[in-house]
């Protein structure tokens, strides 16, 4: 294992985060704080409790999930797309680095950034609402698996994209709508029966549900199902990454 290469990629990516601190960390924290102010304090104060949890506290797992999905994808996609765009990717593919090491470096850095961001949002949330974490180990497991899985998805998007516009399409056009419609701000019990069934097709629902369970012990679907779904996404993403490197799709002519 080329440990120095993994460390080099990881450090290089993390230094990009330091360079763009406002964009990488401050911006998501500020926008999430605004969600707490608007949905938690202003609107939430007029809403009743949901399954014994105040509305402000109820939306915390959904908001963290919203950030972690978008940031994991964006960080990983940008991380691998930038060297492609600038032409420095030659160095990566002429170095004695295996594909696994490349993925560990880029995806590990993107996932780390997302995890840091998640904990910052958790700390920020404490200033607005009171919340508890019933199952901290499971909370970390859900966070970790989600960050890794969606960083892998971001890595795939970064390889697939042939312009900056495409980098934004999936987070903006797919992930954000699915997160909003996946129970970030409500339980699916609040929906009409037909929409409850349709919502079950939304994969993000399972992520938010399992994550919320780790906080309050309440969930829309079985925790085991949530965990199973994350594992399915993880396997799909790993398979796609393996295929990309095996075929050289968009990286080698």
């Amino acid at each position: 294992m080329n440990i120095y290469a993994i460390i080099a990629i990881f450090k290089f990516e993390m230094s990009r985060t330091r360079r763009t601190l406002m964009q990488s960390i401050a911006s998501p924290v500020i926008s999430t704080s605004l969600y707490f102010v608007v949905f938690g304090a202003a609107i939430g104060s007029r809403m009743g409790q949901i399954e014994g949890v105040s509305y402000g506290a109820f939306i915390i797992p959904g908001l963290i999930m919203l950030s972690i999905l978008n940031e994991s994808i964006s960080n990983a996609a940008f991380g691998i797309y930038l060297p492609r765009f600038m032409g420095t990717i030659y160095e990566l593919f002429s170095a004695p680095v295996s594909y696994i090491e490349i993925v560990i470096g880029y995806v590990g850095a993107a996932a780390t950034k997302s995890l840091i961001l998640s904990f910052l949002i958790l700390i920020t949330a404490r200033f607005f609402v009171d919340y508890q974490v019933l199952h901290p180990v499971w909370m970390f497991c859900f966070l970790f698996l989600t960050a890794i899985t969606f960083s892998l998805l971001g890595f795939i998007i970064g390889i697939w994209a042939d312009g900056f516009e495409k980098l934004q399409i999936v987070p903006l056009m797919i992930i954000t709508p699915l997160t909003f419609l996946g129970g970030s701000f409500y339980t699916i019990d609040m929906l009409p029966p037909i929409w409850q069934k349709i919502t079950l097709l939304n994969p993000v629902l399972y992520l938010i549900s399992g994550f919320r369970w780790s906080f309050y012990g309440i969930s829309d679907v079985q925790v085991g199902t949530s965990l199973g779904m994350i594992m399915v996404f993880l396997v799909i993403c790993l398979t796609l990454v393996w295929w990309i490197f095996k075929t050289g799709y968009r990286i080698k002519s």
Partner: protein
Amino acid sequence: MNSFKNKGEFLQPIISVKELNKTYNNNFIALENIELDIYKGEIFALLGPNGAGKTSLINIICGIVNPSSGTIHANGYDIVSDYLKARSEIGLVPQELATDTFETVLASVNFSRGLFGKRPNPELVEKILKQLSLWKKRHSRIMTLSGGMKRRVMIAKALSHEPTILFLDEPTAGVDVDLRKGMWEMVRELRENGVTIILTTHYIEEAEDMADRIGVINKGKIILVDDKNTLMQKLGKKQLKLHLQSSLSELPAGLEEFNLELTNDGIELIYTFDSQSKDTGIVILLRKLNEHGVYFKDLQSSESSLEDIFVNLVRNQS
């Protein structure tokens, strides 16, 4: 000690290319049946016109482009089945100025060293940056550097991981004369330390000055590989130019045995001869000219440059 001069080492190729072919997805045939051996410790210049296949060949050896067929070994390691070991031997300075624009010089160079599995070595990095006159700029972002400096950063990145084989794909393009000379001094030093160097350049005088062997590639085919001096002897020609006192309308009879050419409205006479021959025929020619009443006021001799040879080779193939 230059190991290239050592006969034992000379016979052992550090890079061996066999039956290499490359056809891109758009059916463009970039390389056709390439056979090439590069020996340990030599400076090998790969020359060819634009689009000849130089960069494709280099990119395949370095692992950036997939070969369509054929095999390549770098220091005995197959570049496909044993790519990790093969690549750890090779450094590349690509033709394109591709740099980590937003990073500092030092961070970018350290990144390259780490990528090649080498533990940090600040002393070595400092030495390389100083050699390339980049030390004072080590904390500058690459985007703030001039084109020549960026080129040197790319060289520093390639040297930072201590390759035994170094590909320099037009490394002096856009670099001013002083720096270019400095860079070639460093290349010579690397060679003295046992690094095998493969370079492409558009400044053919550089190849003439630096290279031990020359390879010429055109239209995806290697058309010639030879020792530089042998090549110059075999394909080069020497000319004697005589500036006559009065112009001639035609060559006097009796001079047919010489390879003479009357140029510049009959005021110049050019004699082409084999410089390697024991008897160049110059003495006899001058005597015969005198006998025929052809007098000259000045004379000068010239030898084909590598550029002349290269241009002729490529033109003949076209």
